[in-house]
């Protein structure tokens, strides 16, 4: 999913606000995509993802001015280090409601029954 947007390498996210200001972040890897998109999908007027190894790869047809791109804040938190479920889960849980997660899970799972599989010794 993420690879469609920016490939595997470092990426830049430009979030265009409704008041025509921009928030720009550089991320070490494309997993940081979750930081902007899944959590804030209605918060910004437009969100642009750029591969820093190929900056012309703009998935939304928007080429930011240099001064916007240069204003990027480098994001290096512990969440950007491991490509792990736990780091992703923490971000989801902090920014998506339980109901949204449930709905997402049910839509992706054919099994809407809650699993309980048990074995006794």
């Amino acid at each position: 999913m993420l690879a469609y947007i920016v490939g595997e390498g470092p990426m830049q996210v430009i979030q265009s606000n409704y008041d025509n200001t921009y928030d720009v972040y550089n991320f070490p890897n494309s997993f940081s995509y979750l930081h902007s998109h899944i959590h804030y999908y209605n918060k910004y007027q437009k969100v642009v993802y750029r591969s820093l190894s190929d900056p012309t790869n703009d998935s939304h047809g928007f080429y930011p001015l240099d001064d916007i791109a240069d204003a990027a804040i480098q994001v290096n938190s512990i969440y950007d280090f491991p490509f792990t479920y736990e780091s992703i889960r923490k971000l989801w849980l902090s920014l998506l409601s339980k109901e949204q997660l449930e709905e997402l899970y049910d839509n992706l799972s054919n099994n809407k029954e809650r699993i309980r599989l048990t074995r006794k010794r």
Partner: protein
Amino acid sequence: MSKLSTLLLNGSNELYGILKKYYHYLINNHIYSEKSLDYIFEIIDLFEIEKRYFELFSFDENLKSNGVFLPNKKSIILNIKDLLLAKNIDAINIDTFIIEYFILLLHEINHLMQYKYMNELNDNISNIMRESAILRRNVSNIRNYHDMFPDEIDSHIRSSNIVNSFINNYCELIKNSNISEKRLIYFISLGIINDKEIINSQFDYIHKLLLGNSYNKSYNELPELLHIYYGLEKKNTTMNKIISSYQTQKLCLDINERRF
């Protein structure tokens, strides 16, 4: 296996052999299956855990956390709903899914073994476990400090260390992956490095936070490696290596217990 290795969760050829078979099974089969449970029991049986400590294993998506060991019910319960979700939307691939699942499974098995250890031995490690249990009774919102407790740090590091060794030495299919090493570094530095300060001893930190004083027992005689495993006070050289690992995302210290 020796007696000690049935009381502490450690990697062994037998364990790696089962993990390898289980890994190959999970590549093409569903985790919620009778066969999957067979592998789990095969792992638990390796450590010769008596029925009075453990009887029941469940996957339960209604569980409020990812996993739990319940001593009174002699059971381990895992909830991998979020993990399956992450895999289903391709946020993680199948290898990462299996790595995270193995770490979670071994984490809870380690809690079971800690409980057995605490009941059968009376030494520094069992004392730390008991103190940890007492501290837990003093905290109302356990989630905020969950990763600072010695039993949690030990379970985090042991489980991810075993999976890291398994990936590097026994599983050729994901040999080049650095996910497991990053995960181990994440757990080694968890609670030590945060936004505001560097904490040498997580155990001392929660002790002061919850009881208002430092822990008064000296654990100097324990090997330095166990100071990492149980969140005790560490030497400056150890802290430097942990911080280097955090910064470089490469394991800069030997975390292998067999050296001691």
